[in-house]
Each structure stands twice: as C-alpha cells, then as structure tokens.
C-alpha cells in the first residue's frame, strides 16, 4: 500500500499545501512558536527582580496547630508603593495575609504550604492525586517550637536536622543540628513574591495575554508565585526534567558569563525536532531538583502543575565581586497555584531519592517482557508487515518481546478501533505473536475525533466529559484525527469511565497480550498556543488549564494504566508508555524522551536525559533507539543499539518517512553487531529485573549517575557520558563517528573488570581505551555479583526456565556480593511474597546464597531454575574444583569463556554445572 504521502492531490488543493511545504522545508525546531521568558509576563517580572527587591513579608501568629507549624505572612513594613515601572501588575492594594503551614514527615521531609486565606476571590488550585494517599500517616506530630535566637523559631525535622523559621523578613532554613550548617533555605535572597487574586483595578485593566494570534483571556488576572531556594554545600544541582541536555548537572541560566539565557522551563510541550541542548520545555515536567556536593545532598520539590520557570544562578549572580562557594541559588517561578513545597535533607544522595519517592511513589514493578527489547515504527502498516517483521527477527535470531503499532493502525485515528483493511484480524495477529511469547502495544491518545458515529466521542460529548473552552463549549482543537476534543482527565469520574474502555469487551480486537502507549498527552493541540491547549480552557471544578497543564498527561497516563489494571482484574501489571509526565508518573508506567533525531548529539543527550528522569523517580525510561527523525548511518544505529541496550526502557522507533531500519537491513556485519547488542540486554535481564525490583521498593533508579554510587568521588559529579546500571555495571557510551579511542573515568575505591575481555582496571583514574565496533566499554565493579542468563530465545518468555550464570568480580579482599530477584514476571502475587530474593555473598573462597525474602511475609515462588555456570573474575588461578553443600556434591572448575557470545573472549575461571537451585540455600566452596 502506498503511504498517504505518495498520493497525488487534485490540482486545486495544491495551493494551501504549498504554503505548508515552505514551513516543513525549513525544518528543525520552531523556536518562535514557543514563548520565551520575556514573552511570558510572570516570568519576565520575576526574572527582572534583584535580590531583596521584593517587599518583604514577616511572620505573625506563629503557633503549633494539629502537629504542624502555622503562621500568617504580612508585609514587613507599611507597604511601599509600586516599586518601578516595569512591574505593571504589581499590587498597590494592601495584600491580605498569606497562610503558612509547615509539616514534617518521617525520613527527613519538610513540607511548606503557603496559600491565600479564605477571603480570596477564588480558590487556588492544589494538584490532587500526586502525593501518596498514605502520606499523612507518616507525618510527624510537632509539639514544640524553640527559639534559638531572637526573631526565629526552630523545630525538629529529622535525626541531626532542624528547621528554622526566621520571622522578619520571613525565611526558612533547614540546617544541621549542632553545627548549624545550612542545607536548604527558602527566601534567603528575598525573592518570594505571591501575587494574590484580586478584582480588576478598573475596567480598563487588560489581563489578556496574546501570543502568535492566540489570546489568553486570563479571567482571573495575575496570580504567579516566585521564590528563591538555596542549596548549601552543593557542587551541582540536577533534575527538573524534561530538557534536552548533553550535561548531567544543570548549567547556570543566569549570572556572570552563563551560556543559557533562558531559565529552565517546565511546561509540557510537543516540540517538533527538539534541540539536543536547550533549557526549553519538552514533553514532561517534574519540579524536583537535587543537589549534591562532597558534604551534602539535598532536594527540593514544588508540587505545582502550572507553567514553571527555574533559574539556576551562577556564582556571583548577586554579587560578582563575592561569588558564593559551595552554594547554588535557584529561583522558582510559577504562573499559578500555591506553594506546596517539599525539602529533602538527605545525607546521601540515595536518601534524597528515597525521600522524594516516599511522597510521590516508587516506580511500578514492570512485567518482565516490558524490560526486554521493543520494536516500534510509525508505522507497521498491516498484518503482513507485522508478520514479516516478526519473522525477520526469528530468521536473524534476534530476540524481541514487543511489537508496536502507531496511529496508522486505527480507523481514521479513532483510538480503540482498527483499520479493517490493514488489520482485518487483530486478535489473530496478536495471537500469532503471543504464541511466540511476544506482546503487542497499540497507541491510544487523549484527543478524541469529533465524529458523532464514534462511540467514544458520542459518549464523551453526551456526558460532558470534555475539557471546555473559555466560553464553556467543548474545546475543539486539531490533532491527528482533525477536529478533536480532549477528555477532562482531572475528573476522577472521567478517568474511571476511560479506564473501562480498555476492557476486552470494550476494546474490540484487543487480547490479553496487548498493552498501551499514550502519546500526545502534553496535550498536543496542533492549532493551539504553543501546540498545546489554551490556558483559559476549563477543567473539572472550574480549574483553568493553566493551573494543571503539566499534570494533564499524568492524569491521562494514570487513567489508562488503571484501565489495564481493571482489564486484568487487578492481577496483570499494566504496561503503559507515556510521553508526557509529571511528578508521580513513575507509578503508572514508562516514559520515553519523545521525538529525538538520528544524530550523534541526540545519542549523547539521551544519557543525561534518562539519568535525570531516573533521579526524579521516572526510572523506566528510554530514548528512541536510532533516533525518531531522520535516517541514522549504520554506525550510529549500531552505537545506539549498543547504548540503548542499557536504557531501562529499550525500544527502537522511527518516523514514518524514514527508511526501514529493522536490525537486519544493514548488512551482515551490522546485523551481527545489533544482534550482539540485543543479546547483551537479554543476558542481563535477570540483573535488570532485580534492579527494577529495587527501584520499586526504594526509588533508586535502574540507570544511575556515577555519583549516586560514588557520592564522594568529585570526578563523577558531572559525568553525563557514562552511567551505572545498578551498583555493579558501568557503561560508557560512544558518541562520535569512527571513534578510535575513548577516555573512561572509573570511579575510585574499587577496581573494574572490562566485561568484554576480563581485564582489570584501577579505579579513580581515567583510562584511555581503544574503541572497537563490537561493543561500547562496559565494566563490572570489583566486589559485585551479576546474575545473567546466557541462553538466547525468541523472547524473554521462553527464557523463564533457562539456567543462570553468575559473574563474580572479586575485590581486593576476594569478596563480592550481588542479588537476584525472581517472580512470575506478570502478576501482583509478589506482593503476597510469591518471589525469590537471594543475596549471593562470596568471601573466603565460599559462595553463599542467602535468602533475603522476609520470612514473615509468607508466600513462595516455585522455581526449579539452576545456576549452570559461575564465572570468577580476579581469583588467583589454581582452583581445582568446587564442593557444594548441602549434598557434598562436586563440580568441575575449569577455564571457560567470559561470555558465550560473539568472537573469542578470553577464558576465566569457571565453575562448570554447579546446578544449584536459585530457590535454595546452598554454599559452594572453591578448592
């Protein structure tokens, strides 16, 4: 079938399309289409302020109420008149007092809440359903305020930490008890500004904002909030995705000699051909920032879903003559909402992640298949195409688990339907894949085609389930199907209704092996301002779109994920990939970095982007392998597979105009290289799955910046080229064409084993290594044990029964440790204890399998799987055999290959067929 683009139109239609070509031809990022800070009045105003220039507030009536600190905030002195001319919307009416409330939660979390009082003309929006429902149970009951010095009150925060409320001018500081060393401070630069809701000063006052022909009526006027946060003891700050960046640490956006001139923007946008390095907003927003330095780690999270702009101020921003050391100042600006902010005091960086995911949730435990390799393209055209691609993988012995269908599979972009010409037998098609243990994913977007014969539209419009425009009518925007409306997923009732649509009865043609992809949920509105929804659109409860914009995609993702949960009667773990995200999205599925481009810089940027997502809770993330736009050279594609095989979410995807790029289309050599890359991932699946378990328990991401594992090693702090997979593997990407050598920094404290050749390298040093086309440099940290499966199957499903290999990398004292987690890979039975969790400990030439499944949990996961091979790195030669207890069985020790795949790998000491069961306790002694 020819693609739509190959049609030739009637002549008369040409004219408007010619216009379009002119736009498309000048491809790349449409900078003009997005507002910069200067075009965004609240941002411009806030950014124009100098330190301590905002009329200050003082606290009054400080007390403890209901276990929390409460106070009122009032102007410090008689109000000055509007300060200067460039602040046209500043308030000349005396403001009402603001209400302040500070609560403290277990684990070192301080929550600051500031809102207007009940006399405000309108209730400000507070983002619902993001914080964990049990959060309140973990609140500490404050009972006492102390007064360490005149004009301040302090109270307990956590072991070794206290918080100080400075009365006038109002300021909050989190500090170490005893030393008084500050960790975090709020308003220490006097930039806190809270625009209170009010009536128009006179009828002439113009609250409208216009941008590129779009008018935002702004019926409630200015209501922005801004403040400064200082991270003390910080060398770098990280987080606040999503921005494309080749730097892991956030670069300063303001101050002497900074590169970026715009603040980091958090505003969920569908950006066509985004740049690889820019502070502008992308598809998702998580207003969570972490800081790390040799002495301290901390974090700050502002629960606010309106447009946010964040400046990271370079040293000397306030006083070029005396740049601050060991402190990073930031300014946070939001268009609306309230202050509902969380301070995380750390000690270690992992503590900060635990604290953050303690309030927004840890990542959901994915199904095992979802951790394997995904094959996607816009679009696999029809059932024949699907069958051919599926067969291609088998023919070339490349495993894959999931085949994806993009928007073209639908009947006219009506989601939940099938193009019956291209996909006449969707169930049969899914059945064929499922027979090989494979799954399918179809796309379901939030825009609903305005077509009265489409049941979703009919129901949604009859029930009034759509977002309304400023005039109160169903909002009508343009997206893939043409004229479309958008479900108001802020409303829990609508989310419930939506979830029902995923039942097998409702989603005709779906089967239990079908999962879902949510795209365009920023939401993308082609004819809207900044390709999104007008800010004055109205949601459930009279909430303006401006107030919840960044969370729209989150609610949609949530509703879809709950739909799959319902579909499987609460037993089948959902898999939903979303493009838009917000704080908390980790509870509902995976995300990816959207429409990237097939070039080397986008390959490079993928690592800092995914690491940043991981730091902010979204560990199940990846970038499109190969690059969405454009045609990668085979070398780039191969390098992308080699790197992408280590992404937590490993999916190849491509734009419909690109050449086909299934792995076997680039000659035998490249096919072999890609096969090898995919095999690496499949062999590490037991390790990845164990890491996903860890993430789902602790919030520690699967793919980690080096400094998360080596917080004391300063060399690692801004390394965005290499990363850790779990605690044990270090991966260095290759980001340049025909690169001959690469410098790899291996963190201090341990030595490292090259996983290709077993050679050991010292830590704390940069090593210049030759680069081969076979693989990217990968190292196992000494002192770790990695579980693998070295047999390859069509998909992860057939690997369930396959035996394991343990790779033990010994440290200087000939010791090592590692974990293995196994469950059924599908259901929630693990919550009842149906899983195997072992810790392998090697010490004194003895390997012990220790059960770390808590006995009190009960439950059991049966498995007869055994360990068929144990590879020992760093053991002095001379080992003869192994003796296994219980049973006093012997196993041979010999030289065997480090990996069974490709080429010649040097031999390592190998225990042959110990055949110990992973479910059992045992010891294995090397003699």
């Amino acid at each position, binding site marked *: 079938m*020819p693609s739509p683009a190959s*049609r030739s*139109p009637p*002549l008369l239609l*040409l004219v408007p399309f010619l*216009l379009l070509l002119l736009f*498309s031809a000048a491809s790349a990022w449409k900078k003009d289409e997005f507002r910069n800070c200067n075009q965004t009045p609240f941002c411009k105003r806030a950014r124009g302020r100098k330190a301590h220039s905002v009329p200050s507030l003082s606290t009054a009536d400080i007390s403890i109420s209901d276990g929390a600190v409460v106070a009122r905030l009032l102007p410090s002195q008689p109000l000055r008149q509007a300060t200067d001319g460039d602040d046209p919307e500043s308030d000349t009416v005396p403001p009402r007092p603001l209400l302040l409330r500070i609560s403290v939660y277990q684990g070192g979390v301080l929550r600051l809440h500031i809102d207007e009082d009940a006399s405000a003309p309108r209730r400000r929006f507070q983002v619902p359903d993001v914080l964990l429902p049990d959060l309140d149970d973990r609140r500490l009951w404050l009972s006492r305020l102390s007064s360490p010095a005149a004009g301040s009150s302090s109270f307990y925060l956590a072991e070794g930490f206290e918080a100080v409320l400075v009365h006038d001018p109002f300021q909050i500081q989190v500090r170490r008890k005893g030393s008084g060393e500050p960790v975090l401070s709020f308003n220490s630069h006097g930039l806190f500004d809270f625009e209170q809701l009010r009536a128009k000063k006179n009828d002439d006052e113009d609250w409208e904002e216009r941008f590129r022909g779009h008018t935002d009526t702004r019926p409630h006027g200015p209501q922005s909030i801004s403040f400064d946060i200082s991270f003390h003891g910080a060398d770098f700050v990280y987080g606040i995705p999503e921005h494309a960046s080749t730097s892991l640490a956030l670069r300063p956006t303001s101050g002497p000699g900074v590169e970026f001139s715009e603040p980091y923007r958090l505003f969920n946008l569908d950006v066509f051909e985004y740049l690889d390095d820019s502070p502008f907003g992308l598809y998702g927003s998580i207003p969570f920032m972490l800081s790390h330095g040799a002495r301290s780690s901390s974090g700050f999270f502002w629960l606010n879903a309106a447009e946010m702009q964040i400046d990271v101020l370079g040293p000397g921003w306030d006083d070029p003559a005396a740049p601050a050391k060991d402190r990073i100042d930031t300014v946070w600006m939001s268009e609306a909402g309230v202050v509902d902010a969380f301070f995380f005091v750390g000690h270690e960086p992992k503590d900060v992640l635990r604290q953050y995911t303690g309030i927004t949730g840890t990542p959901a435990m994915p199904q095992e298949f979802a951790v394997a390799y995904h094959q996607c393209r816009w679009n696999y055209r029809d059932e024949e195409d699907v069958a051919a691609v599926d067969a291609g993988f088998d023919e070339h012995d490349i495993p894959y688990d999931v085949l994806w269908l993009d928007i073209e599979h639908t009947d006219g972009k009506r989601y939940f339907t099938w193009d019956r010409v291209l996909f006449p037998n969707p169930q049969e098609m899914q059945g064929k894949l499922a027979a090989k243990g494979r799954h399918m994913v179809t796309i379901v977007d939030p825009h609903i085609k305005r077509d009265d014969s489409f049941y979703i539209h009919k129901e949604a419009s009859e029930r009034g389930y759509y977002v309304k425009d400023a005039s109160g009518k169903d909002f009508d925007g343009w997206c893939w199907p043409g004229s479309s409306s958008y479900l108001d997923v802020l409303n829990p009732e609508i989310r419930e209704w939506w979830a029902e649509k995923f039942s097998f009865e409702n989603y005709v043609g779906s089967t239990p092996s079908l999962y879902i992809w949510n795209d365009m949920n920023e939401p993308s509105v082609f004819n809207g301002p900044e390709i999104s929804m007008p800010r004055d659109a109205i949601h459930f409860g009279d909430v303006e779109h401006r107030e919840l914009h960044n969370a729209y995609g989150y609610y949609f993702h949530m509703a879809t994920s709950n739909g799959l949960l319902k579909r499987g009667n609460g037993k089948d773990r959902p898999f939903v990939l979303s493009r838009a995200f917000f704080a908390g999205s980790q509870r509902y599925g995976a995300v990816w970095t959207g429409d990237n481009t097939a070039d080397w810089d986008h390959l490079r940027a993928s690592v800092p982007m995914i690491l940043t997502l991981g730091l902010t809770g979204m560990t199940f993330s990846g970038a499109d392998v190969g690059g969405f736009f454009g045609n990668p050279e085979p070398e780039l594609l191969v390098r992308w597979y080699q790197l992408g095989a280590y992404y937590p979410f490993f999916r190849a995807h491509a734009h419909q105009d690109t050449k086909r790029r299934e792995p076997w289309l680039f000659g035998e050599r490249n096919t072999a290289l890609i096969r090898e890359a995919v095999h690496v991932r499949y062999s590490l699946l037991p390790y990845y799955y164990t890491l996903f378990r860890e993430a789902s328990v602790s919030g520690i991401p699967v793919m980690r910046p080096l400094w998360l594992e080596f917080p004391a090693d300063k060399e690692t702090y801004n390394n965005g080229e290499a990363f850790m997979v779990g605690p044990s593997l270090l991966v260095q990407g290759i980001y340049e064409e025909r690169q001959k050598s690469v410098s790899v920094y291996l963190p201090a404290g341990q030595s490292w084993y090259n996983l290709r050749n077993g050679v050991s390298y010292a830590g704390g040093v940069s090593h210049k290594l030759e680069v081969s086309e076979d693989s990217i440099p990968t190292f196992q940290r000494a002192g770790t044990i990695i579980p693998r499966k070295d047999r390859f199957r069509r998909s992860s499903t057939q690997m369930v029964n396959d035996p394991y290999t343990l790779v033990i990398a010994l440290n200087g004292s000939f010791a090592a440790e590692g974990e293995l987690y196994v469950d059924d890979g599908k259901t929630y039975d693990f919550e009842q204890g149906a899983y195997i969790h072992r810790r392998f400990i090697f010490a004194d030439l003895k390997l012990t399998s220790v059960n770390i499944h808590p006995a009190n949990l009960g439950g059991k996961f049966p498995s007869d*799987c055994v360990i068929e091979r144990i590879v020992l790195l760093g053991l002095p030669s001379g080992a003869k055999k192994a003796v296994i207890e219980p049973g006093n069985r012997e196993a041979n020790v010999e030289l065997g290959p480090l990996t069974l795949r490709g080429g010649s790998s040097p031999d390592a000491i190998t225990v042959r067929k110990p055949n110990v069961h992973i479910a059992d306790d045992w010891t294995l002694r090397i003699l």
Partner: protein
Amino acid sequence: MGAFLRISLTISCLSLFWISASASIPSRESLGIAPQDLSYYKSDVIKCKDGSKKFTKEQLNDEFCDCPDGTDEPGTSACPQGKFYCPNAGHIPLTVFSSRVNDGICDCCDGSDEYNGNVNCPNTCWEAGKVAREKLQKKIATFQMGVTVRRQEVEKAKQAFAQDKAELSKLKSEEKILKEHVQKLKEQKERIEKAEEEERKKREEEQRKKREAERKANEAKKAFEESSHDNSDHASEILSELPNQDAMEDHHDSAIEEKSDYTAETEILDSWAVGKQVANDHDDTIAKSGDETDDTSEESSFSHVEKQHLVGDQEGTMPEANTGDYTRSKEAPSSHVVEEGQVSDNTEGLSREELGRLVASRWTGENAAEEEDGVNTVKEERHEHDENIPEENHDGYNSDSDEDHNFDDDDLEDDPDMEFGDHGEPAGTYSYNGDDKTDYSDLTASGSLSWLDKIQQTVSNVLQAINIFKSPVNISEADAVRKNYDDSSSKLSKIQSRISSLNEKLKHDFGKDKEFYSFYDHCFESKQNKYVYKVCPFKKASQVEGHSTTQLGYWDKFEESYRVMLFSNGDRCWNGPDRSLKVRLRCGLKDELLDVDEPSRCEYAAILSTPVLCVEEKLKELQEKLKDANANRPSVNDEL
C-alpha cells in the same frame, strides 16, 4: 502462552540430566546432528569446529556450552551459536537455531526440537511435505513450459534486434543520400524564392500605384473588390507585409500550398492577430481564434493544436492555458514564494483548521507531500522541454503529458498511427506506443522502385526542368520544387527521428541473450485499489491515481544478474528520498506485474512474472530438489 507459562513454571526448569523422551528421538550422541556430520562426533575426544577447544564424548549435548561455536551442543540450547538439525522425515530436513530447542514452540515438523516434555509437538512432516512437493511440482511445470516460451522469445528478440540493427545501418546510409538531395533542393528553392521575391516586389509596386489610383477614383468600389479576394491570396499578401518575414517563411509556404489543415490556418490567424492586420471580411474567423486563445478549455482538436504553440511560444503569459498540470503548477510555487516571507513568521492569518493541518504536516508531511507534486511536475516539465529527442520518445506514453507534446514534424500529426496506448486500455500488458511507433511504412515499403529512388528521380527531373533565371517564375515549376523540398526534408527528419530512437533503444543492455528486447516496447500495468501502477522497462515507472501521476522512477539498470529492474530518481518525497522502484522478476508463463508495494517510504517494490526468467538451469535445480524431497520420503508413508 499463558498455559504454556504456567505449565513450564510448575514443571521442571530444565532437564539438565538427560531424559530420554521417547523412542522416536535419537540418542543423545546424535541429537541435533545432521547425518553427514555424525562421523565427526565418532571419536572420544572431539574438537570444536572452530578449533578453539576439545571436548569429551560425555560433554556432547550435556547442556553446557564448551565450544563457543556450539560444536558440543548441537542438540541443546546451551550454546548461543549452535544449530539444531531436525531430520523431518517426510519433508525436507531443517536446521534451526539452538535457541529454539526446548523453548516450548514447535519449530521442526517432526517435533524433534521439543523433547523435554513441556510441550507436545505432533509430527506434521508428511502433510507439510506433501504440500511442499506439490508446490514444487507446480513450479517445475511452470518452468518447463516457461523454458519453451522463453526460447521462442529469445529467438524473436534476437531477430528483432538484428532487424533493428540492419534497419539502423540502412537508414544511416539513406540519411546521407537524402541529406545531399535536400541540400540541393533547398538551394534551388531559395533561388526560386529570391526570383519570386523580386517579382513580387515589382508587382506590389505596380499594385500600390494601381490602388492609389483606384482609391482616388472610388473608395467604395475598392472595398468591394478586396472582399472578393480568396483566402490564400489575401493571406499571402498580408504575410508578405509582415515585418519579420523569415520567421514566417514556413507559414507562407503552407499558405501558398493551400493546405487547409488546422495547423496552418491557426498559425496564419495567429500571425495575423499578432500583426494586427485585421481585415474586415475575416472578423468572424479572427474572433473565433481570439476566443480560443482566451478560453482554451474547449477541447477541440483545433485548440489542441493551438496549445502546442501556446506552450512553446507564450507559456509565460498564458496563465489560463489548459496545458495540463504543468503550466499551472509551475506557476504556483513562484506565486507562493512571494508569500513565504509574510506567512512563515506569522501564522495568525490562518484559520484554526489550517493551523492545525499545518502543524500536523510537520510530522506527517501528508499535506505537504501533496504539493510536492507541484515541485515534481516542474521537474517533469523540465524533462519535457529540456531533453532531446530520445527523451521525448520516452515521455510519449504518458497520457498526462501527451497533450503537451511538441512535434517537430508536422506530418506526424496526420499520421493515423499516432495514438497513445494508454487511453482506455485495459490493465495489463500493452505496447509501448511512443512516437517511435509511428508508421514508417513509407520508409520501409518495398516496391518496384524504392522511395529513395523515386525521390532521386524526381529531384533530378525538377532540377533539370527549372530555369531559374526565367522570369516571371513558372508557378507550377516553383511549386514542384517546393513540394519536393518539403517531401524530402520531411522524409529526412522522419529518418533522423527513427535513427535516434533506434540508437536510443539499442544502447540499452537487454541481457545475455537479448531476452529483454521485447520489453523495450512494452509496459506492464497493475491495478491496486485506487492506484494503477505502470512499469515500462528501459523507460520509467509511475503510479497513477485518477488524473494525477507520480513518477516512481526512471530506468536505471538491471541488478542481481538481470533478476531485478531498478527505476530510480522518481518524484521526490517530502522529507524523504526520491522515489524508486525495484521490480523483481520471476518465472511465469505470461508477463504480469504483481504485488506492487511500498515497503519503505517512497521505496517501492513489485514483482514481474515473465517467461524470460524461466531459465533452464533453475529448472534443473528444482527438479533436483524434487528428486531429493521424494528420496526423503519414508517408504511406509509412500502414497504413490
């Protein structure tokens, strides 16, 4: 899968110690080993095939990978690079990746790859083998017939090739002779014309004097007399007064010859209009001409002819001319380029829907792709106008462009064979009807006297008969010279055009046996949904939807030793490559275009079945294969 999972989870993880599954399964020592390999595994210590290691007989198929290349585990999944051999008695043996062994999926029709008891694979080899053999037999039957057809085709192709070559050399020698004659006639003609010119000037002078006198005498009477003049005289008079006489020479000639075909008349009227020599008594005709110039949508043959001139002469000033898509679409980009500056910076002028479509098109290119045809047609037009004669032949088959054709040789228009094949032809194979299909019978007809002899005779007669210094010029003699000149030069240009089209054809590679020679004059068509695909080997391939045509590519070359025809450099794709088409050839009893597909955006693929591919070697190969398949049949199951 669910069931499988549950079963396999609860049953044993892996049969690590050998389980002899059933009697039909070979012993551990031979499991997964091809019969011809069995001897390799005989000894007690066996080498890995890659030479890297040795292993003992106990290590053979012991579920532990000792050889990186998989030598020691042909019957298990332990080695990632291993291969498993299924005997598949009753069907053809199969070698599968060892990753398929005991993975719960039946890969071998004899079920031998699943022996650990987790899944029961029925033996389907007999059924599958039967089907496969029948298919093979059918294929062989096709090949057998095809080989015969092919032989005939090759014979014909060789003959046609030889004929064309012979014709070419004959035409070349004729061209040489004819050129000389034409030159002589031309000189003669020019001399006559010079004489006529002088004579006419003299007459004009006389007439002028006479008219002046007459006007003075009676103006009304003069008017009456003028209107009684006949057309051609009048025309010639007027033309002779036109300033650029050289340019009008041909028109003058045709007028004098009293040719009443539309071309001549139109041209005269055109010229007239241009010269503003509007005579009262021709008002009607002139008005008609004017109408047609303004409103050429009227599809008369008259306007058809006229358009050719408009395209050639007045393209730039005739925006309304209905000359097919080309003129208009060529206009379109330029008129919008002007707007670009205003629009690209500001989308405010667009309606909501336009804006939506515009943004959507960045990803899809869908709408934008439609205007690419604007670009393409410009390219197409370039093909039309810029390229030399052979290229024109090339274009000749295209129904979209045939209205635009410029024919150098007026005579061709009268040629009854000058029809384009794709008007209302049924889908399928058809002759390539370009202008090289023009009837050249007068060039090749054999008679008592060849046409060349006749011309030679006539020319010498004419040249002898005329005394050019005689004055006034004898009208009939002058006409004879002119007629001879016209005839000869028209023949010459026909010959030249034929030579160049033969040259164009013969320069191609038609295969080892010239087996593709007949393809040159054929197009193959296939209708798929709303599209009609046309493939004209050695020329081009296109996709037609209604009235619009997308070029999928121009002839590039054969690939894969004449098994693939490649057409490349077709119309450009938005955000993509130029379109291209790969036509895979396969043996079939008749020429048939099948399965046109677009596996990758703008990269098309098709299959052409044709006897040309039914080669004997392949037939032998297939027969061999069938023999093997039959030999593998277990005797008990032998139904025959």
